C-alpha cells in the first residue's frame, strides 16, 4: 500500500552493528536504514541485514558522501555504488542530503549547509538530476542541521528546501530533529516551517536526539530524543500522513529497553498527530 506512489514503510530505525541484536528482536519494524558507505561493494551483505530482508523488512541505503550541494557534479563512481547497493538490497528508494561535504578537493567529513541562493538551487537541481539518471529507484533528500547561516540568503530555509524539491522533483526525507535544531539555533518557527514545505513529497522521517552546549543545540544522535522533538513529530503527523518514521542513534548506545522506549514514543507521537488530523483535501499549493 503506498501513499501517492511512495511505499508505506512504517516504524524504522537506523541499522548499526551495536544495535543489531536489539533490532533483530524488535518485531514491529517495517524498515531499517543502512549507511551506504559502510557496505562495501565487494563484501557480502552483513548477515543481520540479510536476515531482516528475508523477514520482509525493507532496507533503505542512506548516503552521506554524494555531496549533491557541492559546486562539482556528483562522482559517477559514488552514484554507481549507491545504485548497486539499492539493487542488492531491493530497496524501494535511496536517500541523501541537501548539503555539501567537500569543496575544491578539501573534505570536511560533515554535512554542511549550502548558501540559500538561486545559484545553489540551480546547481543542486542539476546535480540531483544527474543522480536521478544514475539511480534505479527514486531519491529522497534530507534537510540538515547547521549551527550557522550563510550571509546574503535569497530565501529562508523552508523556501529553499521547497524550491529544490519541486524543481528537482524528488521526495523529502524530513529530519524532524534538524528542523527543531535549526529553528532553535537560527531563530525561526518550526511549525511555520512545516506549513511551508511540500509535505506531499514526504517519503519518511528521521527522529534523533541531541544536547545543548554553550547555548547551542547540537544534533549529536548520541542522546535521547527531546520531548519537543516528539511534539514536532506529532505536529507533522497532524498535517500529513507519514509513510515511515525512524529512530537515528549513532553513539553512546543505551540499553535495548531505552531504544525500544524511543521507538514506542515515535509510534505514539505519530498516532497522536494522526488522531488530531481532520479529513480534508490537501490545501497546499
Amino acid at each position: 500500500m503506498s501513499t501517492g506512489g511512495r511505499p508505506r514503510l512504517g516504524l524504522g530505525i537506523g541499522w548499526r552493528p551495536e544495535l543489531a541484536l536489539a533490532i533483530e528482536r524488535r518485531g514491529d519494524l517495517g524498515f531499517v536504514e543502512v549507511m551506504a558507505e559502510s557496505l562495501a561493494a565487494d563484501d557480502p551483505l552483513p548477515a543481520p541485514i540479510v536476515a531482516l530482508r528475508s523477514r520482509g523488512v525493507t532496507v533503505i541505503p542512506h548516503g552521506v558522501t554524494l555531496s549533491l550541494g557541492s559546486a562539482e557534479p556528483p562522482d559517477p563512481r559514488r552514484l554507481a555504488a549507491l545504485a548497486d547497493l539499492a539493487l542488492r538490497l531491493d530497496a524501494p528508494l535511496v536517500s541523501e542530503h541537501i548539503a555539501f561535504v567537500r569543496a575544491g578537493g578539501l573534505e570536511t567529513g560533515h554535512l554542511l549547509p549550502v548558501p540559500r541562493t538561486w545559484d545553489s538551487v540551480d546547481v543542486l537541481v542539476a546535480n540531483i538530476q544527474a543522480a536521478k539518471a544514475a539511480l534505479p529507484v527514486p531519491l529522497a533528500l534530507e534537510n540538515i542541521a547547521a549551527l550557522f547561516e550563510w550571509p546574503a540568503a535569497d530565501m529562508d530555509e523552508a523556501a529553499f528546501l521547497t524550491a529544490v524539491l519541486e524543481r528537482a522533483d524528488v521526495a523529502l526525507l524530513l529530519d524532524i530533529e534538524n528542523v527543531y535544531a535549526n529553528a532553535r539555533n537560527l531563530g525561526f518557527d518550526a511549525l511555520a516551517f512545516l506549513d511551508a514545505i511540500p509535505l506531499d513529497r514526504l517519503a519518511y522521517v528521521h527522529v534523533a536526539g541531541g544536547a545543548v552546549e554553550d547555548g547551542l543545540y547540537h544534533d549529536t544522535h548520541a542522546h535521547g530524543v527531546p520531548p519537543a522533538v516528539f511534539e514536532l513529530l506529532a505536529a507533522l503527523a497532524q498535517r500529513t500522513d507519514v509513510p515511515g518514521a525512524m529512530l537515528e542513534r549513532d553513539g553512546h548506545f543505551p540499553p535495548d529497553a531505552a531504544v525500544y522506549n524511543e521507538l514506542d514514543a515515535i509510534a505514539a507521537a505519530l498516532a497522536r498527530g494522526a488522531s488530531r488530523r481532520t479529513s480534508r483535501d490537501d490545501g497546499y499549493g
Partner: protein
Amino acid sequence: MADARSATGPSVHHRSDAVDRSDTVDRSDTVAGRVDARARLAGLQLDLARALMAGGQAPAGFDAARLSAAALSLYRKRSRTVAAAWPGLAAALNTEFRARFDAYAAVVPLPGDGGPLADGRAFARWLAANGTLPAAGRREALAVDARFTTGRHGLTARRWPAARAAWLAQSRELVWAVWVPHVGLRWGRLHLGRWRLTS
C-alpha cells in the same frame, strides 16, 4: 559576497512563491548559466571549508562564534570517528590520543576516500613516521592494508586477495592478515615457540 541580483521578494513562506521565478531569468536552462553558478558556488564553499577545516579566517558576513563552534564540532567528529574505527590504536594511545591526533590533524587533511578508516590509516602512518605506532595500531593497520590499497585520495577496496604481515618485537610475535574478496579477513599470530590461529 552579497549577490546583487538578490531576492525575488521578501522572505517567502508560501510554497508556490518559491517556485514562481517568472521575474528572474531561469539560468539553469543554459549550460553557461549553470557553469557560472557552479563557479560562484565553488569559491564560496572552498572559503568556508578552509575556515572550518584548516583554521582559515571566517569569510565575510559569517557569525565568527558560530563558525568557531561548527569548526570545533567538525574536529571532534573527526577525532571521535577515528577512535571508533581504530579502537585498538585509541586504547593503546590512551591519554596521549588527543595530543597526537591534534598534531596529526593540523598537518594532514581528511582523506577523500574511506572516511574515518582512511583517516585512521593516515594517522597510523603519521605516528610511525613521527614517533611510535603502538602494536595495537600496527595490528589494525595490517587488517586495513590487507583489505585496502592506500592511494593519493585515501583507501580503495582491493579486488584481489592480499596478505600482510608484521613482526611485533615487543611481544615477539609475527602477525598476519589475509583477505579474500567475498570470503573476508582472516588473521593469525605466531608467538615465538607456539602457534595460535585467530579468525
